[in-house]
């Protein structure tokens, strides 16, 4: 990259069922906080990047209404979509537009309203993610169903248990309970998870992230702009790794991990000269419990097949090898597709600034954080490494 790029302001709406606001009003909650956090106004922003999957809200082309409402008419937007990794794609585009010299200050916005349609429609929209023609059309695939295919294979090959999956939810709810912006602010037990109703066997309701409305935003700036603006707490983007995989799930190499994660992680580690063991705090893509287990392995925190053991030993908790999903994760905090990647950035910037609530602040020595965001069922992979 031709110049250093930092994050100078972050914002996030309260996540949950937000039947009280439109998509524009919801985005503004995050944008306002991000601008205030950076100490900037709309005049300082040269371009906005709006990430929204946009498949469940009444605005068919959501970027422009969101942009107008937040006071950015004339300044972009570039709209990006990468299914559940949309927020990370927005960050990647903003990052490149600053690094290239195209602009000095950019705003990445991620927003999703998912609760305007009923659950059956939501399942249809999710199931059509990846490949309509050869999968949904014939077999009525759903999003939980896709991850269930991975869960079944992982359990069969490595002996991963339903209890180990449940432990992911238990850990993440422990932190969601302390996060005032999380959708589900309570703790659960292994038993709660095991007894919840089946959604796509072997995944049960509590193995699945919910249908969430939410928004998140980040202000991105060049090193020069950061100096000129006298920002004293920038968080630097050390590297962004990206990858993807086949649309057709039948063309994947196997069902026990995500190649998009492995390739994106390799790229990010290589570019940043950072190794998995250097990462102190991470937000990983736990759209389903099995996804977090696979992420431990594919990100190199533990070898392939040992993810179940890793959570059992508490290695992904505070005090373990790497503190994972102290925001509550997608499971606890909620998973509004377009917002998720930027909500990870929001959390990690706050972690690196040591601004988190008591009991969910990671202890830091190297101040290195990692965000892992998957789109679709491994169709997109983004790994972003941050350092303060």
């Amino acid at each position: 990259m031709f110049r250093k790029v930092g994050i100078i302001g972050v914002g996030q709406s309260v996540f949950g069922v937000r039947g009280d606001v439109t998509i524009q009003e919801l985005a503004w909650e995050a944008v306002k906080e991000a601008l205030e956090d950076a100490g900037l106004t709309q005049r300082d922003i040269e371009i906005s990047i709006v990430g929204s999957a946009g498949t469940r809200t009444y605005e068919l082309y959501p970027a422009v209404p969101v942009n107008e409402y937040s006071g950015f008419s004339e300044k972009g937007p570039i709209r990006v979509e990468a299914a559940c990794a949309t927020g990370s794609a927005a960050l990647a585009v903003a990052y490149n537009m600053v690094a290239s010299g195209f602009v000095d200050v950019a705003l990445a916005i991620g927003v999703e309203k998912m609760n305007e349609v009923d659950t059956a429609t939501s399942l249809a929209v999710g199931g059509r993610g990846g490949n309509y023609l050869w999968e949904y059309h014939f077999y009525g695939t759903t999003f939980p169903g896709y991850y269930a295919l991975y869960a079944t294979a992982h359990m069969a090959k490595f002996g991963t248990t339903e209890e180990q999956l449940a432990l992911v939810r238990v850990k993440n709810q422990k932190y969601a309970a302390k996060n005032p912006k999380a959708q589900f602010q309570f703790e659960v037990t292994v038993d709660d998870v095991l007894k919840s109703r089946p959604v796509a066997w072997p995944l049960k309701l509590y193995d699945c992230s919910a249908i969430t409305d939410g928004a998140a935003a980040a202000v991105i700036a060049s090193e020069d702009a950061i100096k000129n603006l006298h920002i004293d707490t920038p968080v630097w983007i050390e590297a962004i790794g990206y990858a993807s995989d086949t649309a057709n799930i039948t063309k994947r190499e196997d069902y026990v991990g995500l190649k998009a994660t492995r390739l994106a992680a390799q790229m990010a580690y290589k570019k940043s000269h950072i190794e998995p063991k250097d990462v102190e705090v991470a937000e990983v893509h736990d759209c389903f419990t099995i996804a977090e287990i696979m992420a431990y392995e594919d990100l190199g925190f533990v070898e392939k097949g040992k993810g179940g053991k890793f959570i059992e030993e508490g290695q992904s908790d505070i005090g373990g090898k790497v503190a994972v999903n102290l925001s509550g994760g997608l499971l606890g905090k909620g998973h509004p597709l377009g917002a998720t990647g930027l909500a990870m950035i929001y959390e990690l910037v706050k972690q690196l600034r040591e601004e988190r609530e008591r009991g969910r602040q990671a202890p830091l020595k190297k101040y290195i954080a990692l965000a892992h965001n998957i789109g679709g069922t491994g169709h997109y992979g983004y790994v972003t490494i941050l350092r303060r």
Partner: protein
Amino acid sequence: MGMAERKTERKTIKREGPVIDSIPIIYKHRIPISKTVKYWDGLKEGKIYAVRCKSCGAVYYPPQADCPYCGSSDIEWFELPKEGVLETFTRIYARPQGYEDFEPYIIAIAKVGDVRVMGWLVNVKDERCVKVGDEVTLSTAYIEKHNKYIITFQLKNKQC
């Protein structure tokens, strides 16, 4: 309020308010199948076809008529075997719009010859008794609701 009661209080963000209904929009697509019509016709006859690039030998399933790797569109169709081995599966309990009328169904992926094939695993009562590695036979079935043929798997050596 006692401790036990307090513990069961589950704070969830759920904010509701007045709403209006949008004007509904209905999408019905006409999907072109000119380049894969052999596949669609095959299903009607109980046959499952894949594609091989005559130029470089690459195999495509689901089929595609263009080979991006060598740039050729000179392909041949070949029929897949009628037997395979389960690689993974799930039973869909929460069903999407368009599939609400079906009983919870099992989606499976089987290794069939050199490719992987998706299908519905039928005649299974308890998915917990099905195992990765189980052998299956392949057929096709007509689904009247959607006016389509699909691939079905049946367990070969056991009943579940």
